[in-house]
């Protein structure tokens, strides 16, 4: 009745585009991207839905395109969420080991994780992720799996990502309005990092910065676990807005200029040059100073990186990044953005590439689909966990079934 493989769909409702990626999880665990659908997003501002009917329409368009490409029917999605209201922080839970021989059991681990998850949040906040970091047994740090060890006190650090419940519900409701189930909500930054980072890079310590249209999400990995996450509600839209204001052009023209002529750094060659904007008839309408354009963009991008750096400094996460910084998202397309980031963050920066997934080459290469692909990857992990759990219960069911049949 069930296929050998199952379909996992990741949906990202972004500020500049809505993107749905269909992945195929084979029985042996291999993930294959089979479909991609996208559409321009009109109802989203700064990562959050501002106009629900428009957003619904765009999502429908993207889903339909993905369905056609993958030739499947999409029933449920993993939804990526972001927004300025999301916060991430680390929480520690403590639990004394009660058994007489001081051996740590599975229940102790569950209890301490539960303790770590009880946090005082404002009433309208909802926990999106509670990611287990490292265990500490009697103060000894760095324990990944304490089951079977001896100790009197077990502690665990948990990284909690939480956000305003109402705003999260807005996104979920938009998806549900299209008769789609939401399997889970995932923080966009987390999804991007899942898509880009190899285990080695996670071990060494790395920072993933997703420069999107409405927000910039960043995630820090250190020693194989997530150390810090954050969202800055400034993105590519702000760059376009700055250009529109500074060059005195309409917003759509500013976006065009940004894509065609924009760059992160101001170089000597650009000084004194100007761009002529022509209208539909080909007649020149306006001239724009290239130097101004570059300068405005450079300032804005520089500020974004500075703010990310400040956020990391506050969370004390800057010291662990040996593998460097990886950029993804639409903003990674900007020429020389890696160089600018290097100047600001004082660390090696490169553009992120998705790995360990096969399928649509075109999609995998582009940094803006990293989030949606990461959502599929997250979904695959969840499926595998569920399959493992159900395998257990299936085994019991089949044994009981056999028993009764014999009788």
């Amino acid at each position, binding site marked *: 009745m069930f296929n050998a493989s199952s379909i996992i769909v990741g949906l990202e409702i972004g500020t500049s585009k809505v993107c749905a990626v269909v992945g195929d999880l084979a029985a042996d665990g291999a993930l294959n991207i089979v479909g991609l659908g996208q559409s321009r997003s009109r109802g989203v*501002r*700064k990562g959050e839905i*501002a106009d629900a009917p428009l957003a619904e329409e765009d999502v429908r368009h993207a889903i339909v395109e993905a369905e056609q490409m993958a030739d499947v029917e999409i029933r449920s999605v993993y939804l990526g969420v972001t927004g*300025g209201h999301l916060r991430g922080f680390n929480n520690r839970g403590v639990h004394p080991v009660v058994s007489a021989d001081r051996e740590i059991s599975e229940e102790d681990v569950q209890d301490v994780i539960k303790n770590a998850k009880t946090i005082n949040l404002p009433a309208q906040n909802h926990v999106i992720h509670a990611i287990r970091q490292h265990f500490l047994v009697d103060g000894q740090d760095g324990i990944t799996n304490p089951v079977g060890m001896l100790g009197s006190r077990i502690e665990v650090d948990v990284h909690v990502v939480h956000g305003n419940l109402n705003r999260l519900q807005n996104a979920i409701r938009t998806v549900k309005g299209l008769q789609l189930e939401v399997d889970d909500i995932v923080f966009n930054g987390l999804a991007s990092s899942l898509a880009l980072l190899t285990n080695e890079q996670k071990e060494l310590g790395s920072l993933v910065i997703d420069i999107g249209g409405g927000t910039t999400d960043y995630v820090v990995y250190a020693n194989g676990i997530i150390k810090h996450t954050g969202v*800055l*509600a*400034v993105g590519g*839209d*702000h760059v*376009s*807005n*700055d250009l*529109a*204001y*500074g060059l005195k052009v309409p*917003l759509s023209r500013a976006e065009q200029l940004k894509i065609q002529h924009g760059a992160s750094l101001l170089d000597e060659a650009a000084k004194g040059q100007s761009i002529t904007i022509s209208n539909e008839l080909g007649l020149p309408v306006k001239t724009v*100073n290239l130097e*101004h354009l570059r*300068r*405005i963009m450079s*300032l*804005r991008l*520089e*500020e974004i990186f500075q*703010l990310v750096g400040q956020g990391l400094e506050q969370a004390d996460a800057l010291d662990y990044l040996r593998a460097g910084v990886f950029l993804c998202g639409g903003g990674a397309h900007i020429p020389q953005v890696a160089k600018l980031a290097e100047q600001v963050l004082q660390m090696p920066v490169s553009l992120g590439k998705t790995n360990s997934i096969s399928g649509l080459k075109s999609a995998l290469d582009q940094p803006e689909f990293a989030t949606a692909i990461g959502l599929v990857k997250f979904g695959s992990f969840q499926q595998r966990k569920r399959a493992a759990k159900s395998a257990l219960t299936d085994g019991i069911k089949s044994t009981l079934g056999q028993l009764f049949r014999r009788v």
Partner: protein
Amino acid sequence: MNANAQKEALVETPKKNISVKVLGVGGAGINVMELMLKSGLPGIGFAAVETDAQSLAASSASEKVHLETQLLRGLGTGGDPDRGRALADEQLPKLKSLCEGTDVVFILAGLGGGAGTGMSPVLARAAKETGALALGFVTTPFGCEGGRRQRLAQAGLAELKSFADGVVCLPNQKVLTLIDENTSLLETFRIANNFLADGVRGVWRLLIHKGLIDIHFADLAALIRDRHAESSFAVAEAMGPTRSREVMDKLLAHPMLDGGHVLGESEAVLLSLIGGPDLTMAEVNRVMEQVNRQCEHAQVIMGAAIDEAFSERLAVTLIAARKNPEPPSEEPASAAGAEELAQQLLPCSTTARPGSRFVPPAPPLASDQVQQLLARQSRGGARQRKSQARSRQTQLPLEIVSKGRFDKSEPTIHKGEDLDVPTYIRRGVALN
């Protein structure tokens, strides 16, 4: 009838020779009088005045006056105060003979109905005409009894005030705030009546005992007479070693005093302490200190007396007179008009014109001027912006920075800076 000083022990202060009579008018008034009769106040004459023959018969007052005419045929006033008044007017000589020879007449009535409301003012007039001091102790109806009864009660109260020397009014509605929800109706009425009876008793004690610090009869009269407004009274009693503090707590908790508010608003306060032979000066001091603290603007008259029956006990009666908080409807229009005029003529320093939020359109500025302005803004503006947390864009007074796409969305505020405003503007970078 003369007041008999029953106990003439040497310890006691001698009682004054004042004849007091208590007249209960109407059904409610008679009920209150019954309560007082039961508690037994020696030396007071009690009289009941009613139209209803049956309730008169049930009363145990020593004197009964049945006001009756052909018109009514024994059916009572029917809730019509006009009828009651007419009746009383007719029988004025009878009423006057009641009050003959007494010094103080307490008129007890429940306002809102026919007999009490209509007859008590006439009774007061009768008492005055015989030369007695007329003090009214009345109640006003519960809120649930309806608007008409309230109106009649208020009208009757006003009339009574104009005739009597003083009126103490206990609104029944106040009693409601004190009782438990599950109190029976009978119990509620009994509590209300008890309050009134306590008040009468307190005032009577004030008058009867010649105090160590004496309150003259005239003081009381002056207090109540001049004020011609609402007076509140409260009676509290306490026993034991901490009685002075307890009695003050109880007094302040009394519903009539509204938690001390009334004291604060009063213009004159009459306080009477009655204790046993063991009453100490310290206790008196403590009580007075509290009272004085509560009513700093009022004229406080204090009297203290000793009664052997009060050994171990301390009873405080407090009468506070103040200006009427609710202006009666017949306020002279001229007075109100004069006040208005005064307000208009006086320079109003409080009505400052609100700061205008008119932002003029951007005048063309030379680039270096813009730079200076921006440099100044980015330095000093950050601190101001922090305090305005979620306010609109109010950065540059001369140049309106429109946020374009982010005009209608929630601003992203980071450390006091609005990140939606272009970075180059916030950093003051000039484009030439």
